[in-house]
């Protein structure tokens, strides 16, 4: 659908002006071509077509397009590769979509200072590939890293399997060139750290395209570790596997990754790619250690002992790079394999304190049972970041609604357990009405003030993050009252 209700002459004016700014080849306005942009990777609900798509090639062009939108009072939103899973890169109701994929150059690699600056449309995996020969890598590695953009990573504060040890995007981004919603270009942070002032970069990271459009990003690179060790531990139950996760952490060992796959996922993966996971297992835990060789050898002994203490029935250690790739293959292909067990699935993302993993997984099982839905789990266990895949069939009436209801129950349980409704996929459109479960009206009011400072006109990616009943987040400003009202619950 095309929902903005732009007057035809406004639309024509925007198309002409954008063509002047970026050239005719950088503007998409034909309805059949716009359809590509009607959703991100959250495909089964909230499809809305933009009025037009613009593909700029420079910061200046982005700024010019933003200024144009602002003058015309038309909403706009940034989009990277469109792999987001919360509907953030789908228009709320039409408007201009600014797609960064043509801004995909490396601008600078500084090997001695271990920094790289790239344009926002640069693909995540390309970065590690580009700096490999210098013995460096870029740590945040979302499972979508072959496709997703660094700009999208910044906007979603993306994580990945190896973030357990290295941290998420915000821990690796040092600076960004940002076009603010008023069209001004600002440098937030930079190659040189600790400049005095508010940490505007820190609040920009994870703002899901609502505080402006970043066009260039400076990131920290890390030296490749001396050695890597990958282990696969097989457990009879997911409970035992979760206890092993806590046990490893309790020993003072922080693996670089601890990923868990449950029985359903193992079934799907084996049907699809034959990673060699035992079909009778209740869960497999993929554990990776990296660092100085002697350090990880000592840690591996601790990991093995802990897994055995918690009932591990089989332990494999990769001896070669090929074996390591095979152990990872099942994890990497997990989401793609789920098609083997279901027509459709709703991928959820939430976090609990690590020690609450056994409890939440038990509850997810119960919820699935109650709704008559299979819920498969593949997740970043070391961080307590769960990813239940709620299986359903769009052609079965009521199935989608049941899946969404089950998802919502899982979210509530995670919050009760002291967790969060998103660890890495963000709030976007999908979860905006869950936010009040975590934050009081006063907490949200503080965030909305930040929004109002950056985007007083409310034109930059409206309809995202903030609950539908908080219109201040979506362009209607009513933030005059200085005092915030309620006191937050602890």
């Amino acid at each position, binding site marked *: 659908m095309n929902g903005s209700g732009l007057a035809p002459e406004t639309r024509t004016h925007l198309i002409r002006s954008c063509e002047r700014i970026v050239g005719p080849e950088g503007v998409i306005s034909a309805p059949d071509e716009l359809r590509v942009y009607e959703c991100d990777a959250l495909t089964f609900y909230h499809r809305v077509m933009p009025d037009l798509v613009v593909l700029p090639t420079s910061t200046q062009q982005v700024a010019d397009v933003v200024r144009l939108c602002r003058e015309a009072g038309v909403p706009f939103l940034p989009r990277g590769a469109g792999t987001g899973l919360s509907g953030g890169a789908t228009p709320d109701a039409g408007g201009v979509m600014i797609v960064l994929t043509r801004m995909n150059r490396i601008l600078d690699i500084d090997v001695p200072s271990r920094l790289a600056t790239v344009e926002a449309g640069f693909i995540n995996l390309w970065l590690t590939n580009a700096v490999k020969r210098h013995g460096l890598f870029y740590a945040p590695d979302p499972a979508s890293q072959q496709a997703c953009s660094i700009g999208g990573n910044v906007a979603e504060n993306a994580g990945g399997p190896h973030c357990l040890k290295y941290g998420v995007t915000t821990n690796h981004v040092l600076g960004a060139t940002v076009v603010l919603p008023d069209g001004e270009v600002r440098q937030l942070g930079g190659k040189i750290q600790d400049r005095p002032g508010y940490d505007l970069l820190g609040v920009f990271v994870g*703002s899901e395209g609502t505080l402006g459009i970043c066009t260039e990003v400076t990131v920290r690179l890390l030296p490749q570790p001396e050695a890597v060790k990958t282990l696969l531990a097989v457990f009879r139950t997911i409970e035992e596997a979760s206890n092993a996760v806590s046990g490893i952490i309790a020993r003072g060992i922080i693996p670089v990754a601890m990923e868990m796959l449950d029985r359903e996922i193992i079934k799907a993966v084996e049907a699809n790619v034959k990673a060699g996971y035992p079909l009778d297992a209740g869960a497999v835990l993929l554990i990776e250690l990296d660092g100085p060789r*002697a350090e990880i050898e000592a840690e591996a002994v601790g990991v093995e002992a802990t897994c055995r203490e918690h009932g591990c029935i089989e332990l494999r250690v990769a001896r070669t790079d090929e074996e390591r790739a095979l152990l990872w293959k099942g994890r990497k292909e997990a989401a793609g394999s789920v098609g083997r067990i279901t027509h459709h699935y709703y991928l959820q993302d939430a976090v609990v304190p690590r020690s609450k993993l056994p409890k939440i997984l038990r509850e997810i099982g119960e919820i699935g049972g109650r709704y008559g839905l299979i819920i498969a789990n593949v997740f970043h266990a070391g961080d307590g970041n769960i990813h239940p895949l709620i299986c359903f069939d769009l052609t079965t009436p009521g199935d989608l609604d049941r899946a969404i209801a089950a998802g919502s129950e899982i979210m509530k349980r995670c919050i009760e357990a002291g967790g969060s409704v998103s660890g890495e996929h963000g709030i976007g459109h999908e979860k905006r009405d869950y936010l009040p479960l975590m934050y009081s009206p006063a907490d949200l009011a503080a965030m909305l003030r930040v929004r109002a400072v950056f985007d007083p006109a409310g034109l930059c990616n409206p309809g995202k993050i903030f609950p539908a009943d908080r219109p201040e987040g979506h362009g209607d400003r009513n933030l005059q009252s200085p005092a915030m009202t309620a006191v937050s619950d602890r």
Partner: protein
Amino acid sequence: MPVATSLTDGLHAIVGADGVFTGPALAEYRLGPATPHAVVFPRDESEVSRLLRLAWEEGLAVVPWGSGGHQSLGYPPSRYDLALNLRRLNRVLEYEPADMTATAQAGIRLADLQRHLESGRQFLPLDPPLASQATLGGILGGNLSGPLRCRYGTARDLVLGIRVAHADGTITKGGAKVVKNVTGYDITKLYLGSHGTLGVILEATFRVYPRPPAEQAWWLSTPELEAAHALAIRILGSHLAPSRVELLDGPAGRACGSPAQGPALFVSIAGVPEAIRAQANDLARMAGEFGSVTTEDPAAPRTWAGLSDFPWLNAERNGKGHGAIWRGGVLPSDCARGMRAIHEASSEWADTAMAASVAHGIVRGTFRAETPEALARSLAASREVLAALGGFLVVLDAPAPVRAQVDVWGPPLDGVGVMQRLKAAFDAKGILNPGRFVGGI
């Protein structure tokens, strides 16, 4: 100035008579020319909230106060009615070793929190200057860090969630108590390093780390600063996993216990003993490539306190009459260039001692000079040479006559307009630490 009785009554009603000091006790709360009318000691967050509500309604300027150790940062407040001492908010609220997270109130001293975390053989890897007295609130408000950031990052990497009292007394939270969280804006980051100008930090939840089983440290000395720096870059780009890599000029090295007279690199490595041994061998080999002599540091734990604190100790030493403490930033690859340029720019007027955390390009040090004018000239000239490298310099402490001649924060940076608008949105009446931060915030 006498305190209006009605105000004293209002404060007493909130915190009790023993929670309000006036009179001579206020001397230690003096900032620049200003002394507050009263200092208040709330017992819990609801008292903080009510105190702020009162201040908001009366338009009283409030300075949040931890240990006071770093109150020299920034401009003196433009208005100053109340000091809000948070030292009674000093509890650890939650600590779950298996989750590697802990929540503590802002008034707790870092040293006391560390003692608490010992029970789980964990620690909060922050080593700000004057760590023995510093409180969490002060460390977070100033975003203070030390050499350990080489391995663990800064408060912005370690704080997962925060609870804040706003200017009007409203209490809000940001973030969560889990290690990953993308839910709304990461507003926590705004309060870190905001010097108490956006809200009063009440408590924070941290990611904590296992205490390494062992740690060892070495002094690697070279005749020239540049060689020591090149060695640091080599180490940081290698597979070694050091906890600290500090480049020190001769005077800073001597103040911290370096066996050499000239420049030196200080490196510490933590982990299991066999891994430390293996890395020590590699370290010695790399040092050899740069013609450096490697000496194990026998006094390691004492040394790392010194590495954080030496500018403060040095500034108080006898010698030339006036001292200033500063911090600057350059690219990691420019540390030696920056330090040499500072030396050349200031040596005519001042004695210098400085060190750089090479991994992050943070340089900090002291000047001592005969006159305030000479100090001011050294600071201004050093700021200029760092600016030529794209860097900056902030004056952390200096006598008032020096402050009158050099702007402690330096020239305004990009985005200062956004910062001023944020301040206005969070504290419309300008009652929190008014006038102390960049851009007159």
